[in-house]
């Protein structure tokens, strides 16, 4: 995989990670976290680790944001 693609993927991860940190409201943060998960999976794919990318999508983009959303719903009741 070309170095340019790796640099682009790394930059995207840096931008998305910053977006997660900059999101204040936990309910919105679950959404940015989910997007960050997709970008991170892209980086793993570019670095030729498709197994890790799949785990990242399943856990980081679906499971963890869902748990955050449910916790927010419970605590804001």
């Amino acid at each position: 995989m070309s170095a340019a693609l790796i640099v682009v993927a790394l930059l995207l991860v840096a931008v998305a990670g910053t977006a997660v940190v900059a999101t204040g409201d936990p309910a919105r943060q679950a959404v940015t976290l989910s997007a960050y998960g997709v970008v991170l999976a892209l980086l793993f794919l570019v670095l030729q680790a498709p197994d890790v990318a799949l785990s990242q999508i399943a856990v980081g983009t679906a499971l963890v944001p869902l748990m955050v959303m449910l916790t927010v719903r419970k605590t804001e009741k």
Partner: protein
Amino acid sequence: MSRRTRTAVFGAGAAVLAVLFALAVAGLPPFGNGDHPYRDLAIAAALRQATPNVVSSLTFDLRGLDTLGEEMILLGSVVGAVALLRPRRDETVRNRSRTENNQSVALVAYVFLPLTLLIGFDLLVHGHLTPGGGFQGGVVLATGLHLLYLSGGYDALRRLRPLAWYEWVEGLTTAAFAAAGLIGVRNFLPHGTIQQLFSAGTVPILNILIGFAVGAGAVVLLAQFLTQAIALEDD
């Protein structure tokens, strides 16, 4: 501990970490070079076992103990969530939820439910051949099942997801994997022809076992959060 002491403790810890991290990074082989002794050994071992997805061969044939440890971490977190999130004595679990689902969301969920389950089974069954395997397949199956909540509501999910079964599956499959480790099961089955569905000996069997353990574990874990968020009411 005062704010100033906390900052000082954090500063000292961060400084030590920074030095160790810098030393570790300086000692790494250069990024993207072709010299990987561990890779060369692992690929040779995987090919001997007729397992084209080298990661699966690593997971079950070379580093089965690591996989057992990860399985125990999952079991521990599920048991922890069940213990911490159990309903209090003064709370009752409602059998019906009053939430109404958005119709367009329900439609999308109906379409993606069978697709996601299919992808989950595909990842599980072909784990020894293509990227994926027990862990990924299990998590995709568990999250796919929860599309039922988006399409049919909490009642549909609750009826079509007999939680006791998932608790049993999680416990029994983890016990089976631990037992296989204790007896010292090696890849004793015929390895077959590489790239065939029935090949790689015990790897696909263990993949499916781990898939059921991970999938059931994730379902039990999410069920605790769902009960807390949706189905509890104070007496």
